[in-house]
Every structure is written in C-alpha cells, then in structure tokens.
C-alpha cells in the first residue's frame, strides 16, 4: 500500500515538474525568438507574456475538434496520445538529482532511447491516418529522419558510456564530478547536439513539418487539443533532450555549493542547451530531404564510429590522447562539412562579382 502511494505521489510530482518546465520552455522559445529578431515577443499576457502558454492552451481548447473525411478515425485519435505519452513516460528513468529519480535503472540510457524511439511511430501514424498527401509525406520524412539520426546519436553516447563504464545515468553523472564529458568528449557532444536537433524535428532538420513545403507536415489536419498534444510533446521533448544533454555531457547536478543546489545547476545547464536549440532554430534555414539523409548516413554515422574507436584508444592510453583525438575529430569534421557544402553548392563562387558591378563608389 505504501509503495503504491509512494509511486503515485512520485508520478504526480514528476508530471508537475515536467509540465511546469514544458510551459517555461514554450515561453522561453517565444521570448528568445522575439529578442533574436529584434522584437519583444509576447508582452500582453501577464508580466512579459508569462501567461502566453496558458492563453494558447485556452485558445486550443476552444477550437473545433476536426476529423477530415476519409481519415482513419481510430489512428487519428490514437496518434496524438501516442506522441505525448512517451515524452512523459521517459521520465520514469530520468534522474533529477542523486536522490530524486523515478526508478534508477542499471540500463537507464537504454530504457530512455527505447521509449524515445516510439515518437516516430506516432508521427507516421498521424501522417497516415489524416488522409492528406502533405501529412503522409511529412510522416514518411519524420520516420526516415528519426530512424537515421537515432543511430549516430546512440553511437555518440556510447563513448560516454565507455568512459563511465556504466549505462546508469547517476553513475555517468558521478563520473563527471571532476571534469565534464563535454571537455573530454567535445566531438561526441557536437554529434549528440546535431542528432538531437534532428530528433526534435527542429531547424535545420524540421523537414517533417516544413511549413513552406508541406503546409504543416504530419500535423496538417490536426486541430484543437489533438494539435496541442503534438505541440506539448514537441516542447516536452525539447526539455527532455536538453536535460539528457546536461546529464550526459555537462555534469548533470554536479556543481559548487550544497547538494540541494544540484537541482538548480541541472536546470541552469538544461536551459542553456534549450537556448542553444532555440538560437539555432531562428538563425538557420532548412536542409533538403536528400541532403539531410546524406548528412546522416555518409557523415554522421562514420564520424560516430570514428568517435567510438578514438575514445577506446584514449581509454587504453591516457586522458591527453583522449582529448587530443577528440580535437582532431572536431577539426576534421568541421573541415569535411564545409568541403561538402562547397562541392555541392559551388561555394567558391562569391557574390563579389555581382556586387562589384554595382559598386557604390562609382558615380555618374
């Protein structure tokens, strides 16, 4: 009886913490996007628009719950739930602090990736069920993209697991007590961050919902709370993956001061990652679908394999070799990516020629 009560209490507490953070992430995205674009973002709903996510939710509730003719009604109803459920479910294995964790699995990372892999299924269902060509294309794009980018993502994390010698998240965090994995594994950190953007369907990998091509991708036909479910899932996932990044690479709850400050440190690191994701989104254009796949399979997966090999080399020698090899990988990766861009896109050609012929110095 006590166990059941304790579990229920835990579920409620974690759900509340996650929901509150989701709302804060939504607000952050709007405000930060606004300031990045030299505007203010929401200002009317509460202090600096703090209540904007609630206003959005109210608006969503008031919308017509629409099911298109010819849709698969069962799947159309299930898909939004299936999208949101794993993003909460994932928290049963996520530690917030040494003492604050749903259930401390020995293979916590494995559990997390297994649950996260459910998300593309829901998107594919959503795209299929809506009986809309744009939605279907968005669904297929999402499935292809998320499956392709999960592979290098898991391989990037393998280096971290090798360093800690465990798949238990709290052990991985404890292993970073002196130096963060972001320092010893900078290349894996970069790989993980790139794959995370793809997993989150965010620019420059937001092809499944590319609004200028596919209207709204798999979400095209969803309205009202069904749409809100996808929306919530998206922002919960954003928070979740940022949380994992800080656990895996930024030392989790480790930081100066008493132990209870660990929660604050973790949130600070998480929101720093959220900020980076938002920044990337509002600064970059979108890749094309074939370029996305090419990047995933021809660049990221070999790079992740190399990362594993070099990390193993570093572990059997010493930490200087480890970090040195990572820096080599980092430089090589940046060079390779810029080469690819140039080859595919005549990068050498400059606008200089066009600009020179309209040079402002010349007067009639």
């Amino acid at each position, binding site marked *: 009886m006590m166990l059941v009560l304790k579990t229920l209490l835990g579920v409620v507490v974690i759900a509340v913490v996650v929901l509150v953070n989701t709302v804060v992430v939504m607000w952050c995205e709007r405000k930060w996007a606004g300031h990045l674009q030299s505007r203010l973002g929401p200002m009317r709903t509460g202090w600096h628009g703090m209540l904007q996510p609630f206003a959005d939710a109210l608006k969503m509730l008031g919308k017509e719950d629409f099911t298109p003719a010819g849709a698969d009604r069962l799947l159309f109803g299930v898909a939004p739930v299936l999208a949101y459920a794993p993003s909460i479910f994932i928290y049963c294995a996520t530690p917030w602090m040494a003492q604050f964790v749903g259930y401390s699995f020995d293979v916590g990372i494995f559990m997390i990736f297994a649950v996260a892999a459910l998300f593309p299924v829901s998107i594919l269902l959503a795209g299929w069920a809506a009986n809309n060509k744009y939605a279907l294309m968005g669904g297929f794009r999402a499935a292809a993209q998320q499956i392709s980018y999960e592979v290098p993502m898991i391989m990037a994390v393998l280096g971290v697991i090798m360093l800690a010698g465990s798949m238990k998240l709290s052990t991985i965090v404890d292993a970073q007590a002196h130096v963060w994995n972001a320092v010893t594994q900078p290349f894996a950190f970069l790989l993980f961050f790139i794959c995370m953007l793809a997993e989150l369907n965010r620019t420059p990998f937001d092809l499944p919902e590319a609004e200028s091509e596919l209207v709204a991708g798999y979400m095209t036909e969803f309205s009202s709370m069904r749409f809100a479910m996808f929306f919530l899932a998206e922002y919960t996932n954003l928070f979740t993956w940022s949380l994992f990044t800080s656990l895996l690479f930024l030392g989790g709850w480790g930081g100066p001061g008493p132990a209870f400050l660990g929660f604050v440190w973790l949130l600070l690191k998480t929101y720093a990652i959220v900020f980076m994701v938002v920044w990337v989104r*509002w600064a970059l254009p979108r890749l094309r*679908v074939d370029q996305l796949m090419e990047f995933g399979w021809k660049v990221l997966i070999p790079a992740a394999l190399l990362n594993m090999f070099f990390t193993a080399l570093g572990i059997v020698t010493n930490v200087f070799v480890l970090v040195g090899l990572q820096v080599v990988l980092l430089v090589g990766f940046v060079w390779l990516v810029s080469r690819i861009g140039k080859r595919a896109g005549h990068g050498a050609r400059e606008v200089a020629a066009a600009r020179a012929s309209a040079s402002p110095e010349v007067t009639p």
Partner: protein
Amino acid sequence: MTTRSAIAVDTRTFEGISGVFEVGVLGMGDLPSAHTMPRHLIDVLTALKQERGFTHLSLLTAAERPAETPGVKMVYAVTRRTDHTTLMLSVDLPEESLRVPTIVALWPGALPLEREVYDLFGVVFEGSPNLRRIVLRDDFAGHPLRKGFVMTPGGVDAEDLAWALASHGDDGPAPQPENSDPKRTVPLPYPSVAEQLARPGDPILHSQRQLLHMGPQHPSMHGVLHLWLALEGEMVLASEVTHGYLHRCIEKLAETRSYRACTALVDRADYVSGFHTELALLMGAEELAQIEVPPKAQYLRVLMSELVRLTSHTTWFAACGIDVGAFTPMLFSFRDREAILDFFEEITGGRMMFNYFRPGGVKDDLPAGCADRLHAYLKTLSASIDGYEALLTTNEIFRNRTCGIGVISPQTILDFGVTGPMARASGVDIDLRRDEPYAAYADFDVHVPLGEIGDSFDRYAVRIAEMRESARLAMLALEGMPEGDFVTPGVPRAIKPPAGCAYRRVESPRGELGVYLESDGTAQPWRMKIRSPAFSNLHVTNAVLPGRRISDIIAIVSSVDVVMGEIDR
C-alpha cells in the same frame, strides 16, 4: 516626351519579308509597325526572329476593332536586343473567323499569352497544344474583353458552387477544347502533367504516381498561386502553373475610367511596386496626348521607382528566407521596408496604393525636410543589406538549397520571354533603365549586376546587388533633383488623347513591365493591356521544375519573385 521620340522610326527592318504590308506608323505610336494577314503571320515572325534578330517576344495581346469593322486585332511586339529596336505587328481578324496560327513553336513563352487572349477575346490559336482558359474558370461563358460582352451583376449561385466543388477533385488539368486541329498541333514545350500521371510508376519500387495540388491555399505560394504537380515520391515529373484566383478585371475596368483613374487602378495590379505600373501607363498616355513632363517630375519618378524597387526586393527577401525555412530574415528586411513605406506615406499619402504619378508630372512635391531625412536613411541602408547577407548569403545550408537549383539557360530565358533579375541572373544583359532610358534614367549611370549560372542563388545575388544599386540611384536622384515645376501646368483633369496606340515599358523589380494603350479619342482608353513580367517569369517554371524535389519547388518559385496581383490582374 524627350527620350524616345529622338529615335527615328526605322521601317527598313521589314524590307524583303513577304506577307508584310502597310509598313509604317499605323497609329502605333513611334514604334515601327506593320500589318500582316493570319496566313503570313508565322512566316513574318520567323523571318523577324531568325533573320533579323528580333529574338524577344515582348507583347502578345489583342484589342477590339472599331465598330464599323467588327473583329479583333492581334498585336505582337518583338524586340531586338542588340540595338534595342522594338517592332509592332498587327493582324486583323474579322468577326466571322477569329482564328490565327499559334506561335508557340517560335516562342514557347507565347503559350500562356495566347491562352489569355483566347480566354478574354475568344481568338482561337490553331495548333496550340494547350488552349484553355487561364484567368477565368473553365466553364465561364463569353469573352469579357469583347466590347459586346454584357457583364451581369450578381454573386455565385448554387450551380456555380456545385461546379467549383465538383471540378477541384484529383482529375488533373481539364482537357483542351476541340477547337484546335490535332494534326497541326505544336508539341507542348514542357512535360505534360496528364501524360506523366497516366504512365505507371517505378516498376522496382512499385510506386504510384500522384497528383498534388500545391496551392492556392498553401503557405509558400505567394498568395494564390496554384501548381499542378505530377509526383513520384518527392520527385516532380511535370508541373503546370494555374492562376486566375486573383483576377480583378483591371484591364476591363480601365476601359470605363479616365486615365487618371486608371493610375489608381493599376496600383492594384503589381501591389508591391505600384509606381512602375503607374509610370508605364502614364508614359503611354503622355505620348498619346503629347504632354511634356518637367525635369523635376522625371527625377521624382526615378526616385520613387527606385524606392519602390527597394520595398519590392525587401518583400522578396522576406519570402526567400521563409521559403527555405529561415524566418528571421523576414523581420530584418521588413524593418527597412517599413521605414521606406513611412516615407511613401509622407510623400504620397499611401503606403502601397500611391496614385502619385499624374499625366504631366506627379501629384505633389517632396514635403519640407523629407529629402534630407530620406537621404540620411538611404545612407544607412547599405549596412542593413550587409545584415541581410550575413543571415543568408554565406550560410552553408542556404547555399546548398539554392546553388545549382533551377538553372535557367539564356536560351530558355529568350524562349519564355523572361526578363528582369531572373534574366540577368542567367547572364542575359538587359535592363530597360540602361537600354531604353525612360523618365530621367538617361542622366544616371545604371550598373546592371549579372549572374553566371542562372540558378536560384544567382537570382538571389542579383537582387541583393540591385538593392544596393537602387539605394545608390535614389540617393543620386535626391542629390541631382532639379528645381522647377513638379507637374506641367494646364494639363486637364481628364485628358483626351487622339486615336492611336502606344506601348511603353519600364524596368519593374520583376522585369519588363509594359503597358499597351489604345485610344479612340475619348477620355477613356479603348484598350489597356499590362505586359506583366512576373507572368512570363512564372510560366518558365513549367520547364524548370520537372526532375526536382518538392523542397526545390519552393526554392525555385521564391526566386521567381511572384506577385499574383500582377500576374492575374
């Protein structure tokens, strides 16, 4: 008018071409013109294109003939790029036989223009591969630009609605009507959507081909553009541009309005650069009515044309960013657009619908102090454009999305009558501001930026360079502004030009924007036709899109800089 009347009407270019008669100034303004018969039309145009070098089809339209000789007059204008000569050719079609051979074999870009004439005048183009209505709906009865057409007021009835609902299924473009001879049909100059859909999909993948309607309700179709796409997966096999959703009968309405009222009307055609259409219209009207324009007004016209080119290009830049998935550039460029629109509001009273140019000049002088503030603002613009470029030009992803995408060869540019930045991006060195200077452009040294490859990136780079050039020209116009009247005194409110025709062109942000005017001596134009550059530029996408992916469609269409108001009119 000082700029064009200096060119002597040279009719020697017609010498030795059989089938041409009545060479001379057939009430066609100061452009060399000739008259021919439908049966000689192809021979005459072939000779002009292949032997005399008139490679650019500038205008293809029609006008009603006077009541005593009922029928329709076809009007063609062709341009020789080497010496910037333009010829007008007219063909009279009697009422009982409104048929003329198609010239699609000579200029594939004539196809949509002929469809428009068929739609609005009922002229049948023999041998046309795709003679369907283009701006009006397929079941429309009658041809509204004929003078005898009776306009019936009223809204949409239940029958119309049922038709609209029934005809927008996945049935592909409607079949062409039987009024052209299948044996003499010219092949379609690009893959046909219906044919591509009829073929089976990839046998190995067991894929099915599908028809996708992109638009008219689609976030990146620039208003109400509609593409029929034959797809296999994400690959485009054939595409067909459909438009007419923004048709507002501007050319028909102009026939019942005075020239000054027409100025307000044509603002609504190309609604992001209204001054250019106003200018082309008034240049024609002033030529017909022999009205002089004082130098100060000419400078003000140049100033406004360049400023509105800046607002148009900033609008394009915003769309260009959004279409490849970058939202932020839009807010950067709209900040500058707002600043210029504020100046427009101060000078003309309107932010988009200006109605500022008048026969004989402009409506008003610059307000006190405005010139200095405008000049100070334009000086800061170069730094702003650097800011735009920092967001996209050197961005690896943007380059991957645009470089090598939608390459248009100079030959295709000529075939389809593409003009403006699109043509210049393909290395075709044309710019009417420099080639046929109008207003006060003869006083300016216009630099024309050119691209090398003709892909989406070149079109982007050319427009960015044009923005810098426009800011420079606008500053020069402010600096060199002469003193004097801003409008010729004594020009009546309703001008009544003598009977005749005029065809005048300006370089709009989208290319060669012409207005063909025909006067019958009354205060209203007998026929007003806007030669829309975006119309021709858009229809080239039918030939460019096949073989590309869905994402590329967006990158290509956004580099066309589509303004549906101007295309549908």
